[in-house]
Every structure is written in C-alpha cells, then in structure tokens.
C-alpha cells in the first residue's frame, strides 16, 4: 500500500514522501471523507463557501425587506 503510493508520487510530492502515513483503518465520517482520494473534502469546502455567501445574501435581503417596510 505504502509502496503503491510512493510509486505514484510526483516531483511535487518529494517533500512529503517520508512522512508517516496513518495505517489505522478509518471509520465513520473519516471513512467517508477519505474515500475516492479525499474528493469529498473539496466538496465540503465548496459547500462551506456556498453557504457563507448564501448567508450573506440572506442578511442583505433582510436589510432590504426592513427598508421596504420603512418606505410603506
């Protein structure tokens, strides 16, 4: 397994090549997030940003709604 990973390593990889790779079998949320080369972590990060922007838009929207009530 470790050999396998090292064989696929690229030039950009060399600095990390000697670090310890955890060998404990992951479980639960770890198992899900670490599957498919950790692509779901990227999804998580994108979702955090998406919800951050949505949250901000929601707040702006509420400010506008308050103003609309003031006008009426």
């Amino acid at each position, binding site marked *: 397994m470790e050999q396998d990973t090292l064989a696929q390593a690229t*030039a950009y*990889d060399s600095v990390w090549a000697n670090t310890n790779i955890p060998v404990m079998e992951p479980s639960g949320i770890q198992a899900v997030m670490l599957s498919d080369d*950790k692509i779901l*972590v990227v999804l998580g*990060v*994108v979702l955090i940003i998406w919800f951050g922007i949505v949250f901000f838009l929601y707040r702006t929207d509420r400010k506008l709604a308050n103003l609309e009530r003031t006008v009426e």
Partner: protein
Amino acid sequence: MDKLTPPVSGSRYSVIRAIIITWMTLVILGAFLLDIPRMNILEHTARNLYFHVPMWFTMMSMVLVSGIYSARHLASGSRITDIRARESARVAAVFGVMGLITGILWAKFTWYSGTSVWWNSDPRQSMAAIQLLIYGAYFFLRTTIDDNEKRGRIAAVYNLIAAATVPFLLYVLPRQMESLHPGADGNPAFSEITAPIMRAVFYPAVIGFIAIAWLLYRQRVRVAILKENLTSD
C-alpha cells in the same frame, strides 16, 4: 442632511456582474475537472488551494479597502466613507470566517487524518481566530456608540489598528512558529509544491473571489445608502 448618491447600477454594472459570474463558473469547472499531480496525504484536497487560499486573499483585500476608507473618514468625516469602511470590513469578516472553517475541515482530513482531533491550536489557525475576534470587536464597538460622528471616528481609529494587525497575525507570526501549515518554518512553500496547472486555476480563483466580494460589498453599500437617505429626513 444631504442625500448620499448610490453607485450607478447601469448596463455597465450588469455586464461586469455577468462576467464575474461566468468567470467564477469556469474557475469551479477547472477546479474540479483538470487533472493535478498526485500528492501524498493531500490527494484531491490539493484542489482546496483554489477555494481556501483565495478566502484569505479576499479577506485581506477587503481589509485594505476598509482601512483606506477609515483613513479617508478620519481625514474628511464624510458619512459615505464610514459606510464603505463598515461594509468592506463586514465582507472581510465573512470571508475570514469561511477561510477559517474551510481550513479546519481541510486540516481535519490531512494534518489530523487518522486521529480524532479537529482543533489542535496550530499557530496558523489560532492567529486567524484571534484576527477574526479583533474584527468581531469592531462591529461590537460600533453598536456601543449612539452618536454618528463619534462612532465614525472611533470606529475608524480602531479599524486602522485592526487592519495593521492583519499582516502580522496572518503572515509574519505564523511563519516564525512551528505550524503544520505550508509556508511555516521548515515547511514547503507555495512555490515548491504548486504545479503550473494548479496556478492556472488558482490565480483566476483569487481574482474571481475578490470580484464576488466586491459584488457583495457593493450591494451592501447600496442598501446602506438607501437606509441613510430614508431615515435621515
């Protein structure tokens, strides 16, 4: 009091907005679809470079905008500069929070992979959290002063001090300390571990997120100007 003039939202603005949205869509497609060199431990999370790092670039650029308007507010005392300083600081804080949370998630499945740790007080993360608290205090400070002029002046002084801490807390100090974050003492830096193909997505992503922040900021300024004009009669 004089009415404040909102920024003009004509067809030029619509075009710029459409360009920003298209640009960002292409960045997201590139971020997920382009092949990147395989890296141990990071695996696909290397793609977070396109999302997590621009959060901090965006945060810092909005801090810069905010600092400039605070300085101008101290010089001129005009209401619009206070509004612009406040709203750009708000956008900066939101991007800072997103930067910190995305960083926590990324660290969890790389630095702390195989452990049950989510937060280990890494200097980089701790400094970022302190920075956000400094900005939290800015908004709290604003709520404690009723008089408009006084609030504008005091908030501007505090904001300039807060902006001055940013380079130290987010850049200088974490690099001096032992951190797992790239760029820290003894760790590989951006230039050593980033493939050209990743730079081709990363730089447009930085520009795109700053542009998104500008859209959000501009919206807020328009709402704030409307509110000033409606309530100051």
